[in-house]
C-alpha cells in the first residue's frame, strides 16, 4: 500500500483542483426543458420554457391591506412610483392609468394598422364616411357626448373605440381614489413585472427584497401590510422552505449520525474519515457532469446528492470489520468483494438512465456513476491508510448480539420464512391495487403549502387574471408566418363564440397584426385629396364644420407612410406584457398562444379548428409531461435492474446467489411502494427516485448478509448493519418530517424501504444453513 502521507497529498491536491474547478467553472442551470424527453413536442417544449421564463413568470401580484382606502391608495401610488424607478422592475401598474393614457395613446396612434374595419371594402368611401358621421352626430347628442368628442377631430370613423371594444379585458379591478382595489374595497392591488425571469431565483429574490424595501419606505400608515404572489415568488419561497427544512433537519440528522458513529468508533479522527468518500464522490460527480454537459441542473444536483446517500455507508462497511487483530487493510480485503459489488450494482443501475433520452436523467446517471465510483475508490484505497493503528470499533452491546445473532433465533424453516415474506408483499399490493398508483399532477410536485397556493389564486381572482386552463397554440416558421395563421382563425373563433362553445378569446394579432395585414390596411388609406373630397360629400347636409376634421386627414396621411407596427413600439406599456405573453419564439420556431375563456364544449371547438392549430389543456399537458418522465424513469430503471442482476451473478459467480441478494430487496421496494399507495400517497417521481435509492442501499445490506453468511460471521454482520441502517434511518426519518413534499416523499419512502429491506433480507437471506436445519 502507498505511503499514507504521499497518498494524503495526492488526494488533497486532486480535491483542491476539483474544488477550484467547481468554484470557477461549474454553472448551475434550472431550465426545466432538460427534464423533457428529447422527443417532446415543440408545444410541450415552449409551454415548459414559457412557464419558467415567460412574461407570466415575471408578473408579481401585490396586495396592500390593513388601513383606510385613502392611506392604502397613497401607499399604492408611492410604491408604484418607487417600483417604476427601480432597476429590478420592468413595469408596474396600480390602476392609476388603468387601460391608461399610455396604452390608449399607443392604440390611437396605430389605429389604422390595428382596426379590422379597414379590411372591409372601401372603408373611406363617401358612403362609409357618411355612416360614420351620422353615428358621430348621434353620439355627440348623447350623454356620452363629451367623451365622444375626444376622438372626433382625429378619428371620426371611430377606429380607436372599435379596437378598444375588442381588446379591453372584460374584468379589471375597481378603482377607488384612482387606484385598483379588490371587490371588498379593503385591499389596494398592484401588478408589477420583474426584469429577471421567473426561473432566475437569485435575481427574483433580490427584486422581492427591493419590493419589501420600497414598501417599507412608501407605507402611509404602520398598520398597512403587504402580500404578494408570483411564479417567481412561489419558487423563491419554496426554495426558502426547502432550505430552512434542510437546515434544521440536516443539523438534527448530522447530530444523530455523529452520535451513532461516535458510539461505534469512539474516535474523532475515524468519524471524520467517514465523511471523506461521500464528499469526494459528490465533488467528482459534479465535475464530471459539468465537463460532459457544460452545466449541471439544479434537479440533478438535488436528486444526485440523494442517490449518493448510500456512499456515506461505504466507510462503515470497512470500519465495522476492523477488530483487535484485524487491521483496516485486512478488513478492506475481507469486505472487498462486497464493496466492489455495492459500487458496481449502483453504477449499473444508474447506467440505464444515460440512454433514456432525457438529458436531465442522463446527467443524474453520470453524477451517480461517477459519485459512487469515486466514493468506492476512496474507501478502498485511501481510507485504510488513515485509520489509526491499534484502533478498533467498540463491540456492540451483548444484548443486541444475543437477540439478533443467537442461533436460537433461526428456528423458523426456510419455507415458512418465504411464506411470511410473500404474504406481507402480496397483502400490501392487494391493499394498493384499487388505489391510484401514480400522481402525475404537476401541482402536487410543488413544494408549497396549500395556504400559499390559495393566496395566489385569491390574488389572481381579485386582479381578474384567473389561471387559464384552455388555450390554442399555433406554430409557425417565423413571426410573420405565425401571425398570419393567427389572423386566419379569427372567423372560426367568432363562430365558436356565437355557438357558445367558448365565451371569449384573446388574439395577439389584435395588438400586433401581421406585416401583410398591416400593408393591406395601409393600402386601404386614401390620399389626402381623395379623403377631403369624400369627407365633403359625406358631410353634405350635416351640421359638421369640415375644417374640424383636418387632424383626421393629417393622421391618415401620416399613417400612409408610417413604419410598420412592431413589438418594440409597445415597450413600457401593458401592451408589451400582453404581446410577450401571447407570442414567443426565435429563429424558425414561433408560437402563438390564444387563451380561451369559458370553454364549455372543447370537442365542438376542436372540430372547427383548422389543421395546425392545437387545443391545449394546460392541466392535461403538464400531467402528460410528468407521466412521460415517470414512464421513462421506470423503463430505464427496469433495464438498470437487469444490469444489476448481471453484475451480481457475475460478481458472486452464481445465478441463485444473485437471485438471493436481489429478490428480497425488490420485494421490499415493491412492498414499500404498495404501502405508500395503500396509505393514500400515490407515487410521484420523487418517490420513485427514493425507491431507486432504497434498492441501492438494500442490495448493499443483502450483500453484507450474504457475505457474512458465507463466512459465518453473524456478529460482524449485525455490527455493520446496526451502524449503517441506524445512520440511514436517522437521516431519512428526520427527512420524513420535512414540510416540503419533495423531502417528505424521499424521507418516508427510504425509511420504510430500509426497514422492509432489512426485514425481508433477514427472513430470506439470513436463513439457517441447510446443515443446521437438518441437525
Amino acid at each position, binding site marked *: 500500500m502507498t505511503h499514507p502521507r504521499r497518498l494524503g497529498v495526492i488526494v488533497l491536491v486532486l480535491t483542491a483542483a476539483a474544488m477550484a474547478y467547481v468554484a470557477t467553472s461549474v454553472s448551475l442551470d434550472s431550465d426545466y426543458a432538460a427534464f423533457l424527453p428529447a422527443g417532446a413536442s415543440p408545444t410541450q417544449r415552449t409551454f415548459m420554457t414559457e412557464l419558467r421564463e415567460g412574461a407570466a413568470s415575471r408578473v408579481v401580484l401585490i396586495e396592500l391591506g390593513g388601513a383606510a382606502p385613502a392611506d392604502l391608495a397613497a401607499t399604492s401610488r408611492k410604491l408604484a412610483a418607487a417600483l417604476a424607478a427601480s432597476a429590478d422592475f420592468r413595469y408596474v401598474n396600480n390602476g392609476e392609468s*388603468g387601460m391608461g393614457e399610455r396604452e390608449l395613446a399607443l392604440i390611437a396612434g396605430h389605429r389604422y394598422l390595428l382596426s379590422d374595419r379597414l379590411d372591409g371594402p372601401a372603408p373611406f368611401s363617401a358612403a362609409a364616411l357618411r355612416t360614420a358621421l351620422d353615428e358621430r352626430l*348621434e353620439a*355627440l*347628442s*348623447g*350623454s*356620452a*357626448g*363629451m*367623451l365622444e*368628442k375626444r376622438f*372626433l*377631430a382625429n378619428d371620426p370613423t371611430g377606429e380607436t373605440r372599435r379596437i378598444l371594444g375588442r381588446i379591453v379585458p372584460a374584468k*379589471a379591478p*375597481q*378603482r*377607488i381614489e*384612482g387606484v385598483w382595489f379588490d371587490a371588498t374595497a379593503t385591499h389596494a392591488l398592484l401588478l408589477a413585472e420583474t426584469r429577471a425571469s421567473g426561473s432566475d431565483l437569485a435575481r427574483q429574490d433580490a427584486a422581492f427584497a427591493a419590493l419589501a424595501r420600497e414598501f417599507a419606505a412608501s407605507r402611509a400608515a404602520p398598520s398597512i401590510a403587504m402580500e404578494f404572489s408570483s411564479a417567481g415568488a412561489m419558487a423563491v419561497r419554496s426554495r426558502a422552505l426547502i432550505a430552512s427544512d434542510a437546515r434544521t433537519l440536516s443539523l438534527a440528522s448530522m447530530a444523530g449520525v455523529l452520535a451513532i458513529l461516535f458510539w461505534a468508533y469512539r474516535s474523532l479522527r475515524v468519524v471524520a474519515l467517514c465523511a471523506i468518500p461521500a464528499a469526494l464522490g459528490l465533488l467528482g460527480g459534479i465535475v464530471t457532469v459539468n465537463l460532459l454537459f457544460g452545466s449541471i441542473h439544479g434537479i440533478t444536483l438535488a436528486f444526485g446528492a440523494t442517490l449518493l446517500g448510500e456512499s456515506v455507508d461505504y466507510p462503515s462497511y470497512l470500519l465495522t470489520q476492523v477488530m483487535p487483530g484485524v487491521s483496516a487493510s485486512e478488513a478492506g480485503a475481507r469486505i472487498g468483494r462486497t464493496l466492489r459489488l455495492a459500487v458496481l450494482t449502483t453504477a449499473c443501475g444508474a447506467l440505464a438512465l444515460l440512454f433514456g433520452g432525457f438529458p436531465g436523467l442522463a446527467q443524474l446517471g453520470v453524477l451517480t456513476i461517477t459519485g459512487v465510483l469515486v466514493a468506492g475508490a476512496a474507501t478502498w484505497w485511501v481510507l485504510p491508510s488513515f485509520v489509526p493503528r491499534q484502533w478498533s470499533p467498540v463491540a456492540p452491546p451483548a444484548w443486541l448480539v444475543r437477540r439478533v445473532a443467537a442461533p436460537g433465533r433461526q428456528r423458523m424453516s426456510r419455507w415458512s420464512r418465504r411464506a411470511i415474506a410473500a404474504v406481507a408483499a402480496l397483502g400490501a399490493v392487494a391493499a394498493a391495487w384499487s388505489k391510484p398508483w401514480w400522481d402525475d399532477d404537476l401541482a402536487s410536485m410543488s413544494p408549497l403549502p396549500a395556504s400559499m397556493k390559495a393566496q395566489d389564486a385569491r390574488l389572481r381572482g381579485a386582479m381578474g387574471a384567473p389561471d387559464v386552463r384552455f388555450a390554442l397554440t399555433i406554430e409557425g416558421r417565423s413571426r410573420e408566418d405565425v401571425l398570419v395563421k393567427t389572423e386566419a382563425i379569427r372567423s372560426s373563433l367568432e363562430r365558436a363564440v356565437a355557438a357558445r362553445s367558448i365565451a371569449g378569446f384573446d388574439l395577439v394579432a389584435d395588438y400586433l397584426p401581421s406585416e401583410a395585414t398591416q400593408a393591406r390596411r395601409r393600402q386601404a388609406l386614401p390620399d389626402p385629396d381623395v379623403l377631403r373630397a369624400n369627407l365633403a360629400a359625406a358631410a353634405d347636409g350635416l*351640421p*359638421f*364644420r369640415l375644417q*374640424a*376634421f383636418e387632424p383626421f386627414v393629417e393622421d391618415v396621411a401620416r399613417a400612409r407612410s408610417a413604419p410598420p407596427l412592431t413589438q418594440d413600439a409597445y415597450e413600457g406599456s401593458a401592451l408589451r406584457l400582453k404581446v410577450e405573453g401571447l407570442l414567443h419564439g426565435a429563429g424558425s420556431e414561433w408560437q402563438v398562444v390564444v387563451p380561451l375563456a369559458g370553454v364549455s364544449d372543447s370537442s365542438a371547438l376542436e372540430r372547427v379548428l383548422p389543421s395546425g392549430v392545437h387545443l391545449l389543456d394546460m392541466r392535461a399537458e403538464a400531467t402528460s409531461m410528468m407521466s412521460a418522465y415517470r414512464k421513462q424513469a421506470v423503463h430505464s430503471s427496469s433495464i438498470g435492474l437487469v444490469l444489476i442482476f448481471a453484475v451480481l451473478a457475475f460478481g458472486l459467480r452464481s445465478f441463485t446467489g444473485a437471485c438471493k441478494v436481489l429478490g428480497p430487496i425488490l420485494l421490499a421496494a415493491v412492498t414499500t411502494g404498495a404501502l405508500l399507495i395503500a396509505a393514500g400517497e400515490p407515487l410521484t417521481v420523487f418517490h420513485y427516485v427514493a425507491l431507486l435509492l432504497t434498492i441501492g442501499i438494500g442490495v448493499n445490506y443483502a450483500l453484507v448478509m450474504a457475505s457474512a453468511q458465507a463466512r459465518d460471521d453473524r456478529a460482524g454482520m449485525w455490527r455493520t448493519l446496526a451502524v449503517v441502517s441506524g445512520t440511514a434511518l436517522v437521516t431519512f426519518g428526520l427527512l420524513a418530517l420535512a414540510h416540503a413534499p419533495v423531502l417528505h416523499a424521499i424521507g418516508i419512502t427510504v425509511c420504510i424501504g430500509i426497514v422492509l429491506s432489512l426485514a425481508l433480507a433477514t427472513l430470506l437471506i439470513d436463513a439457517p444453513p441447510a446443515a443446521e436445519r437438518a441437525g
Partner: protein
Amino acid sequence: MTSLRPRRAVDRLVAVLALAAAGIVHALEPADVLTPLSRVERSDATFEETRHIAALTAPVVRRGSLHYVRPAELTMVVDSPVRERLRIVGGTLTLEGRGGTREIRITDMPVVAALVESIRGTLAGDPAALGRYFTVRASGEAARWRLELTPLTTELATAVSRITIEGADTQIGRIDVNESSGDRSVMLIAPAARKP
C-alpha cells in the same frame, strides 16, 4: 390653518360690522349654499341643455328631466333629440340608449366622476363630494347664489376648465360647463312636478 382662525374671525367680524353699516350682508360661503340643499330629500326638474361644439355649425339642444333622491341617486331622462336614460346610484352609472344598456363604474373615469359629482354633490349639499374634485367658491346671496367649481387635478383640468352653477335657495337654475377645448354647454333647469 388653525392658527389663522382667530384672525380670520376678527377679519370677518370687522367685515360684517362694516358691511352691516353699509346695509349689506356678509360675503356668501359655499356652506351657506350647500347646507340648505343638504336638507332636501328629493328634487325633480326639467332641463334644456345647449351644447356649443366647435366641430358643429349649430348647437345641439337636449331636453329632458332630472331626478335626485338622497343620498346618492341621480337620474337624467333625455327625451330629445335621442331618448336616453342615465342613472347613477352610488358609484355605478347605467346608460340606457339605442345601443342597449351600458354600465360603468364612475370611479374608473375621473372626468365622468367629476361631472357627476358637480351636479349630484350640489344637489346633495355635500361639500366633501365637491371638494374631492374642485375648489369651490361662492358668490351672490342666498336668494340668488352662484358656485364656481375649478378642477383640482391637472388630469381633470385638461378636460374641464370651469363649472358654474347658479340657483336660488334650494333650487338649481343653471349649470355652465366650460371645457378646456373651448366647447361649452349651458343647462337651464326648472322645477317640475314629481314624476310617479
